[in-house]
């Protein structure tokens, strides 16, 4: 997708006044927050599992080179072909090459945020290969030409009416008089349309929630079964996965799967967890003949071993955005990057540049709710603060903001000056605000008073009153 994060403020403003979006966002709370809370309450070991999950990823990251090599060895032994891509461009070239050699005309896709990150769909289309998204949410937004607005529920920003309108607009081969007023009919229609695509595809591409080093296995997690039809029916299966997806053993991946579904959708376990290793074996009646895994860096190594290291533990569950008051207010598109919410605020500047994405780590109250629900115990506000530090070092913040904060910091370090100036300012404000007790408007305070009154201070500061009493 095209990064529009620099226009965050404008995008956020549009989101706040978008009635369809605001209505759709109401479902996030019941759909995600309550379900997660319920399923977590039902599992006494949940917090211990979070600790174990964090430890698994920490150990793996510390030994990432060795686990990647072990993974490659096992995957190759099983008949898979492992490719390495430093950049998104490298990955695109590798994938196109595989598709061309396979003579592919269409390629079905399981949901993959990494594929979104590298803009593979547009690239394939430009090169004469039709990508078909099969995850229902991804399919819907593909019809609309939109990027996903959530890393788990790509179409969470849409209402049922909008989906119906899109189906009618695009599925012109179906009876125009058909009844699509129920969601079940919409689902049935998508199932029918996509079934044909699944069966006709030459290549299927999925992401990977995890790569298991012990066995050279890629793992996908879906509720729909679309990822499975994507990877079992075509002759060629391509997996695109970034380097931090690697975990050591089948036991380790089981621990991570226990916290993933519960954190993401409030299910004890997602419907389909599929562990794939290599192409079909001799004697297998189905399965792909070729199995390719494209391992991608695209900025992860720039986070490894430094102050952003913890972000590499992310398992893309989406719990952070589900609980974020900013995400609740504006939805995902306003962020203008594939990765949204708190995890996007940390990841986007790393992957797409601080210049592009600086708004994201700034648009946070640091309420900490994200960190409190992250199954991998990632200190998201701390990481956002690190981006603000980088921004400050590079002088990227608006000049008035830097100046104002600089003045405050100067005064804070010079108590006598602070006392003198605040005595005057508070004295004046207190006198001005005495009658009403508050200000509806105040010069220089427009950011505050645009939407709320400013309580008036009393005329004498606390410290001055203390001083008065002591004298």
């Amino acid at each position, binding site marked *: 997708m095209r990064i529009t994060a620099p226009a965050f403020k404008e995008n956020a403003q549009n989101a706040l006044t978008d009635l369809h979006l605001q209505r759709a966002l109401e479902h996030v709370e019941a759909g995600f927050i309550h379900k997660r809370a319920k399923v977590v309450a039902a599992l006494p070991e949940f917090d211990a599992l979070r600790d174990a999950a964090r430890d698994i990823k920490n150990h793996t990251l510390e030994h990432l080179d060795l686990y990647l090599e072990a993974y490659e060895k096992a995957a190759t032994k099983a008949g898979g072909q492992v490719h390495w891509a430093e950049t998104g461009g490298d990955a695109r070239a590798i994938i196109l090459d595989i598709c061309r050699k396979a003579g592919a005309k269409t390629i079905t896709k399981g949901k993959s945020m990494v594929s979104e990150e590298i803009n593979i769909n547009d690239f394939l289309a430009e090169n004469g290969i039709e990508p078909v998204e099969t995850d229902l949410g991804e399919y819907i937004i593909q019809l609309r030409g939109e990027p996903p607005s959530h890393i788990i529920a790509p179409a969470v920003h849409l209402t049922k009416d909008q989906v119906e309108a899109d189906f009618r607009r695009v599925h012109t081969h179906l009876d125009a008089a058909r009844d699509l007023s129920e969601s079940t009919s919409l689902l049935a229609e998508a199932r029918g349309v996509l079934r044909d695509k699944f069966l006709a595809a030459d290549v299927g591409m999925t992401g990977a929630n995890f790569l298991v080093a012990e066995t050279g296995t890629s793992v996908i997690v879906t509720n729909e079964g679309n990822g499975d039809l994507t990877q079992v029916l075509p002759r060629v299966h391509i997996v695109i996965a970034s380097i931090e997806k690697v975990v050591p053993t089948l036991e380790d991946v089981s621990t991570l799967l226990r916290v993933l579904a519960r954190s993401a959708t409030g299910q004890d376990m997602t419907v389909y967890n599929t562990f794939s290793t290599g192409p079909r074996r001799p004697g297998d009646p189905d399965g792909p003949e070729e199995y390719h895994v494209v391992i991608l860096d695209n900025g992860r190594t720039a986070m490894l071993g430094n102050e952003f290291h913890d972000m590499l533990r992310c398992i893309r569950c989406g719990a952070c955005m589900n609980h974020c008051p900013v995400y*609740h207010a*504006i939805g995902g598109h306003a962020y203008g990057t594939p990765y949204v919410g708190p995890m996007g605020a940390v990841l986007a500047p790393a992957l797409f540049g601080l210049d592009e994405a600086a708004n994201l780590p700034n*648009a946070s109250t640091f309420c900490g*709710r994200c960190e409190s629900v992250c199954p991998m115990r990632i200190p998201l506000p701390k990481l956002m603060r690190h981006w603000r530090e980088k921004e400050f070092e590079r002088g990227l913040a608006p000049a008035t903001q830097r100046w104002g904060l600089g003045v405050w910091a100067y005064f804070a370090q010079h108590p006598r000056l602070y006392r003198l100036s605040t005595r005057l300012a508070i004295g004046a404000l207190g006198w001005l605000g005495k009658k009403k007790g508050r200000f509806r408007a105040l010069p220089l305070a427009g*950011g*505050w008073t645009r*939407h709320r009154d400013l309580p008036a*201070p009393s005329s004498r500061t606390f410290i001055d009153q203390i001083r008065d009493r002591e004298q």
Partner: protein
Amino acid sequence: MTDKPSQKAPHVGLFATCLVDLFRPGVGFAAIKLLEDAGCTVSVPQSQTCCGQPAYNSGDRRDAAAIAKTVIAAFEAYDFVVVPSGSCGGTIKKHYPGLLGDDREWGARAEALSAKTHELISFLTDILGVAAVSARFDGSVTYHDSCSGLREMGIEAQPRALLETVDGLTIREMADADVCCGFGGTFCVKYPELSNAIVEKKTEAIAASGADTVLAGDLGCLMNMAGKLQRQGRPIKARHVAEVLAGMTDMPAIGESE
């Protein structure tokens, strides 16, 4: 009866916070009363200004560290440092050590200060063992859990426990009491529309609770919520929880004239 952990009266240095100092001194006096009633001696170092959180959260580590050093120097002599704010208290307790961690001398002094820094209400209940206050407040209140207080300082049960002992007071919990009010320090002026959207949800929840007054332990949140409630023309008042617990509710509510 309150439990006193030592024979000598604990000597508390009160870190009032810049918002209390500038906008609502009454909270500072309420804090003094609560601490003295619980058997503490209270001093208010007059060189205090700000905890440095605005600089810290804006990425200006250098200024934040410089401010932190002045706070440490002014307060480290006391037995305890008590703060009527989870946010400023959290900055001192949870963030100063990391901020000064690279400096051996100051890092150690920051750790030492952190160990004896507490938010006001939780200091009363968890350290001094205060189980009840003698105060009266006729009316219903709803309590907003300020984010830093809740998630950094573990403050949730304590204010409610003490409020339960206030004569005449009823607590009406709001939905989503633990969800951010949208203040976020500089956030509310950097992203005013976003902040407004969030505080609107908060004021809806406050109104739906049916309470006359909203309480919290952080003045930033309270000014934000009070300002929005007043702009909406709602009669709901806002006070710092310390005012109610100290029985000092004669002063006008936040944003009210005398």
